């Protein structure tokens, strides 16, 4: 087996093969998401296997500054996000954050984000935890995306209140999720893996009415 482990290219291939055999928490709903999506109205898809890292560090501490230098900053208050390239940090609580990065940022696929955060943390007071398998990601987009969410979320989602680039830890469909408004008509919803099927089916049901002609 020495030959296969030697070259970095073959390691990459192995990582890609590993990814191909993984099953995401809402994989069984992929076809239903595709057929339930209404192009130009509201569309739903799972974005599987994003790299998620939980950070804890007291605001203003040296540890927080070192972590911020890796992520490009840490949001200061509720709702805040800091985006640096393809990586975004969401505010979860005072001193608690979630880093959302592409799949390839994970060490199992050759990324070095988590190691970089761990070495920034060093022996400082805080935490860097790989939470990639904790949640999956749903992407809800289109002009009706807000109307769909409003059926099960008590936050004020009107654009005059909720701006793009805001993320809240809250409830949608009575389950705890992180809701991140990524654009004017696009949302990312992070349910825990065990809630993925429930939330997926709930969203499909909430989207159904927009497939029919509007009742005058």
């Amino acid at each position, binding site marked *: 087996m020495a030959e296969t482990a030697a070259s970095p290219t073959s390691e990459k291939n192995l990582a890609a093969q590993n990814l191909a055999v993984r099953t995401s928490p809402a994989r069984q709903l992929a076809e239903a998401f595709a057929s339930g999506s209404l192009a130009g109205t509201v569309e739903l898809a799972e974005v599987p296997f994003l790299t998620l890292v939980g950070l804890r560090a007291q605001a203003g501490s040296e540890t927080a500054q070192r972590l911020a230098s890796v992520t490009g900053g840490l949001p200061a208050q509720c709702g805040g996000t800091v985006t640096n390239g393809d990586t975004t940090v969401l505010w979860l*609580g005072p001193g608690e954050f979630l880093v959302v990065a592409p799949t390839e940022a994970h060490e199992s696929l050759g990324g070095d984000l988590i190691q970089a955060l761990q070495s920034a943390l060093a022996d400082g007071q805080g935490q860097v935890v790989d939470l990639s398998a904790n949640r999956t990601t749903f992407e809800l987009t289109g002009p009706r995306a807000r109307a769909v969410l409003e059926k099960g979320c008590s936050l004020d989602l009107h654009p005059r209140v909720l701006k793009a680039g805001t993320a809240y830890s809250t409830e949608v469909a009575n389950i705890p999720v992180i809701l991140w408004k990524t654009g004017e008509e696009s949302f990312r919803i992070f349910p825990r893996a065990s809630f993925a099927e429930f939330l997926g089916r709930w969203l499909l049901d909430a989207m159904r009415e927009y497939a029919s002609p509007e009742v005058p």
Partner: protein
Amino acid sequence: MLLISCPNCGPRDETEFHYGGQAHVAYPENPNELNDVEWSRYLFYRANTKGTFAERWVHSTGCRQWFNMLRDTVSYDIKAVYPMGTPRPDTTPAAPEGAAK
């Protein structure tokens, strides 16, 4: 449904919170010196106030932080929200430390 103002997140539905019982119940200084009656009073006995009551809440679905709240147990009117570890912001006598009457 109560609308509770989390000190970190602002007003959110009651379903995002969990109740933590009576506030300002201090842990005994020397638990080993308590007899069973005193220990049981610390563990299990709480005030059953009709009116303004100081209690603990945690924003479990949001920022996951604890805070204190003054709530009227009759009208459910929320009179104050204040940080853990700070005294009850009221002129009326504070709830008894430790065990209730």
